[in-house]
């Protein structure tokens, strides 16, 4: 979205730091979001994604740094900024004492909207969430996917310019995830701006025009998914597994490909020329393999490592 040919910045963080009891969880983050884009903040668990979102919303004060949300200085004027933002939290916090309809009505009131205006908005929101038939249902009777969609509809009740989604599809089945993705694409097509955090790389690759990889409180890479793949990783991957994969890696893999990594039983060969690798696998029935193009997950694993984060 451009205004007079100039791109409009909806969110900017500059040199933002935040520590908890001497443990710095956000260590100098710079971030800029332009109107109309879908931006993905990627990172393993504990990377500082959620804290970054909370800082941007003015729910916690930075130790250092400047934050501006929709033109308002945060945290000082966060309340005014939040009036034009929608938030889908990581874990659903729908109001269990209310029906689907009441959840939207009561949430709209928190924004200072008039009842008549909210009630007029509810049918299209329910349609968007695919919950038209569930207006009178209690929250406890909804499936996980339905709750997620209702959370998304609730975040739209104030017709926000910018929508924050914290791990929108974690815990959903594939059908429910695809439905959420389709809805998010629709929102971007309508001109909404989206900031989502995720650790699903396929999600980021599908939805986001621009992503940033965050690890240990820092942004360590930023660009379009394609740019990151080009910049950080060899274009092809051969995954090899089965008895003898390890010995193959020792004897051939290290020589044939630029990078060879092992994770459990599987050997990952990163290379510019997959065919050279495949030739050596011919006739070795004990080895099974998958030849594919490098994707964002490969970049992510290269940048953040294969160690578990808990």
């Amino acid at each position: 979205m451009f205004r007079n040919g100039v791109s409009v910045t909806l969110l900017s963080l500059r040199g933002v730091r935040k520590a908890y009891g001497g443990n710095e969880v956000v260590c100098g983050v710079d971030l800029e979001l332009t109107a109309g884009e879908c931006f993905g903040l990627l990172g393993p668990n504990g990377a500082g994604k959620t804290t970054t979102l909370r800082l941007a919303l003015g729910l916690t004060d930075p130790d250092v740094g400047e934050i501006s949300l929709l033109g308002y200085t945060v945290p000082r004027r966060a309340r005014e900024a939040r009036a034009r933002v929608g938030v889908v939290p990581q874990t659903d916090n729908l109001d269990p004492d209310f029906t689907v309809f009441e959840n939207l009505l009561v949430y709209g009131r928190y924004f200072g909207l008039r009842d008549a205006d909210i009630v007029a908005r509810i049918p299209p929101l329910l349609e968007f969430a695919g919950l038209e038939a569930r207006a009178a249902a209690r929250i406890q009777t909804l499936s996980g996917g339905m709750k997620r969609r209702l959370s998304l509809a609730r975040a739209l009740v104030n017709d926000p310019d910018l929508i924050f989604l914290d791990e929108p599809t974690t815990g959903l089945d594939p059908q429910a995830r695809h439905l959420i993705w389709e809805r998010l694409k629709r929102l971007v097509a309508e001109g909404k701006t989206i900031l989502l955090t995720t650790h699903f790389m396929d999600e980021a690759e599908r939805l986001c025009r621009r992503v940033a990889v965050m690890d240990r409180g820092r942004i360590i890479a930023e660009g379009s998914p394609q740019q990151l793949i080009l910049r950080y990783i060899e274009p092809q991957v051969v995954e090899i597994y089965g008895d003898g994969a390890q010995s193959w890696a020792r004897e051939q893999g290290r020589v044939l490909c630029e990078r060879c990594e092992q994770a459990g039983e599987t050997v990952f060969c990163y290379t510019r020329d997959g065919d050279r690798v495949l030739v050596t696998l011919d006739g070795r029935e004990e080895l099974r393999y998958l030849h594919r193009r490098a994707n964002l997950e490969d970049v992510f694993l290269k940048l953040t490592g294969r160690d578990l984060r808990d």
Partner: protein
Amino acid sequence: MRAQHFAPPRVSPRFIQVWKRNFLVWRKLAITSMLGNLADPMLYMLGLGFGLGSLLPEVNGTPYITFLAAGTVCYSTMNSATFEALYSGFSRLHVQKTWEAILNTPMSLDDIVLAEALWAASKSLLSGIAILLIIWALGLSHSPLTLWIIPLTVLIGLTFGSLGLVITALAPSYDFFLYYFTLVITPMVLLCGVFFPVTQLPPLLQNVSAALPLTHAIDLVRPLVTGRTPQWHWLHLAVLVAYCAAGFYIALVLTRRRLLT
């Protein structure tokens, strides 16, 4: 604990929407909720009032049931606000994460805590009025001064609501509230003159009693029931207001520390 957690309260008229949220939930279960809130104080008042009252002479010239009725108004008012601020408040704060959902809107935490304290006071008002209706219906008091009890229940409710929110802000789980009941609420019921005059206690316990908010609530309400203007009423009001203000501020600081870090 950070400096900004100690900032003075900053509230906006939007807090009313949070109050309305709680009201809307209550309205759905109003009948059962009222019965639950009232059965306990009624049974105490009627059971002890008639049962024990028939064995007792008058207390300071008042029939025992009338004496007890004044204590019950305060006790029941205190309990309503306390239960609301503790159990229901904790559900909304911790279990259902309702406050976190609200914080993503243009509402501030100060608005939420104010709305919760006022909501607790609203529950107190209902309980207080219900006991008053019984006092009038049983003819225990005919004094128009009893009407003053209605605004007083709001102040008493706000005080115990605020104190309860302090405990809620500190609570890791529902079990934590048992400490508050055992160490604060139960002693207060027994030491502040609900069932018998404080003057019956040994001097040391009388001094403890004088420092507790429920004593001052009862010192205001009991004369009104018997048709007299309370002595030292400005002092008693000041003590309640002080507990209320301190409780609200501490609850606010602790809730900010809990949710806004």
